[in-house]
């Protein structure tokens, strides 16, 4: 017995050694580098030429919150997140609702609804820049032309060139890309509900509408939460989409784009690091509660 046990113990230690390279890599490249970035954010490295590097406390952060550009980018990000979350949730949910009972050709619909996830926004930016073109009426192309054709001409607008509506316009391609993903998650949710529940309600004489409202929808609340968290953390990091469509333009500035400009165009590392830490903070408040929830349910199983 003793030999078997010692063999198992050595196997477990062996297992640890096989994972050790990855543990070290994550420790250095994720946690170590986050700590390094945080440290940079507390220094005076405000240009590449600073020789006498010293700590300045949270000065960079307080300056950020007095920086009009930063506040503008943060406001844009929150606006974008709001529209993107609501729009993607709704459209993905509707897609799932339409498909959930099964229709002929379902596979085809599903595949097409999901293809945007396979393409980069740098590529799709070219065409979205066209679709979201601001010319109207006689000169119209893109969505403005579509709106005219279907009799909704009064909805034509400047899209991402409009100072007030820019972030709403930016959410359109984002919703286009992520809706299929949300559909897939909700579809999995719907189909994970045992058929007996539906049947039982039907036998009790509940109408279809009531079955959805009182039996099926409540079962989807875990899926709803997952979707919200996935979309939330993606939204905080939005970068390619903005660069692909409007580049570094002021009206559509968000934190990730501002961070890039500050760090690489004007080599203000301390300020760039501070913006990066704020994005990390926004992501962490969304993701950490979720991870601890996942961890708890895993242990229960």
């Amino acid at each position, binding site marked *: 017995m003793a030999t078997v046990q010692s063999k198992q113990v050595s196997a477990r230690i062996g297992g640890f050694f096989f994972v050790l390279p990855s543990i070290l890599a994550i420790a250095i490249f994720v946690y170590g580098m986050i700590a390094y970035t945080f440290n940079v954010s507390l220094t005076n490295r405000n240009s590449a030429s600073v020789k006498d590097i010293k700590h300045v406390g949270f000065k960079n952060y307080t300056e950020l919150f007095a920086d009009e550009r930063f506040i503008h980018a943060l406001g844009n990000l929150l606006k974008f997140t709001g529209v993107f979350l609501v729009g993607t949730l709704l459209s993905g949910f509707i897609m799932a609702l339409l498909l959930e009972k099964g229709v002929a050709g379902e596979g085809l619909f599903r595949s097409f609804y999901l293809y945007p996830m396979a393409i980069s926004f740098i590529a799709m930016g070219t065409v979205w820049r066209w679709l979201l073109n601001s010319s109207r009426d006689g000169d119209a192309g893109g969505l403005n032309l579509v709106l005219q054709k279907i009799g909704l001409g009064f909805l034509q607008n400047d899209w991402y060139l409009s100072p007030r509506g820019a972030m709403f316009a930016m959410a359109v391609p984002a919703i286009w890309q992520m809706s299929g993903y949300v559909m897939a998650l909700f579809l999995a949710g719907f189909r994970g509900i045992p058929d007996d529940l539906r049947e039982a309600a039907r036998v009790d004489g509940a109408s279809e509408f009531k079955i959805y409202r009182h039996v099926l929808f409540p079962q989807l609340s875990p899926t709803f939460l997952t979707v919200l968290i*996935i979309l939330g953390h993606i939204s905080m990091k939005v970068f390619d989409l903005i660069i692909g469509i409007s580049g570094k333009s002021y009206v559509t500035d968000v934190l990730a784009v501002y961070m890039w400009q500050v760090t690489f165009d004007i080599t203000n590392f301390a300020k760039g690091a501070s913006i990066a830490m704020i994005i990390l903070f926004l992501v962490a408040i969304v993701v950490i509660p979720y*991870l601890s929830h996942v961890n708890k349910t895993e242990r229960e199983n």
Partner: protein
Amino acid sequence: MSADIVDRITHSTAPKKNRRQLSGVAQFWLIFRYISLTIILAMVILPIYVLVVNSFKGISGVYLNTAFELPKTLNFETWSAAWDWLAVPMGRTLLFVTQSSIISALIGSINGYVLSKWRFAGSNAVFMLFLFGMFIPYQAIMIPLTQFNKLVGLTGSIYVLVLAHVVYGIPICTLIFRNYYASIPDEIIEAGRVDGASMVRIYRAIILPLSIPAFVVVLIWQFTSAWNDFLFAIFLTGGSPKLAVATTALNWLTGSSNQVYYGKNMTASLMASIPTLLVYMFLGRYFLRGLLSGSLKG
């Protein structure tokens, strides 16, 4: 326990009833559903439709107000122009993406095996710390990462991207393999162990041959995300044309200064998307599995 998440999604319960047997109300809803699904389909296809039709209109035949119209003749001018611009960057991308995907898959497989079948004290905590790495905004590591690359002499080589995609791919690859191996019964491992096989031997003889589906998922996931990546590419290759990859080359082409060549831009965008679209078309099911593992469910 419900079946695997992708099976659940693709398990279509297509209506078995004949349409004639449906009541009037049910028939109405069925038609309503088809019309709605088709309208949504049109909206989803619209952007790629515009790319495709405009890629055949020639260098100077593309105009905003006729963007939705089919080309009158098939003109391949823009395809050869776009190819001249993208051939080298796309070749470079293919080269580095292949390497990073294979290395990522091997690492993920070993980690997943140990973390699901040979747990050690604290292995759960290790896994959770890995997972957080999957969600971080990469801006938070970009400054030290560029300095690290300079320090070890990687700057100026395409291996900066191999390193980045391998290291930051560890969480998702480990997760996919761990979930996959969790579905393999422990008894198989147990049986191997009783026969005196070592951990490594069990892996090579039993686990690895069973791992092909998970390898496909991880390989195409890593392939797609590295191919489409722009953030690492723009930060780590610092805009050097010598290191242009598909996304950065495309961005320089289509960036605001170059907007006159609409036709070429459209075609180049389509061309750069073809590899990942092909993967999606032929291996969509595996792609979906990778995509859904990011939600940590199933």
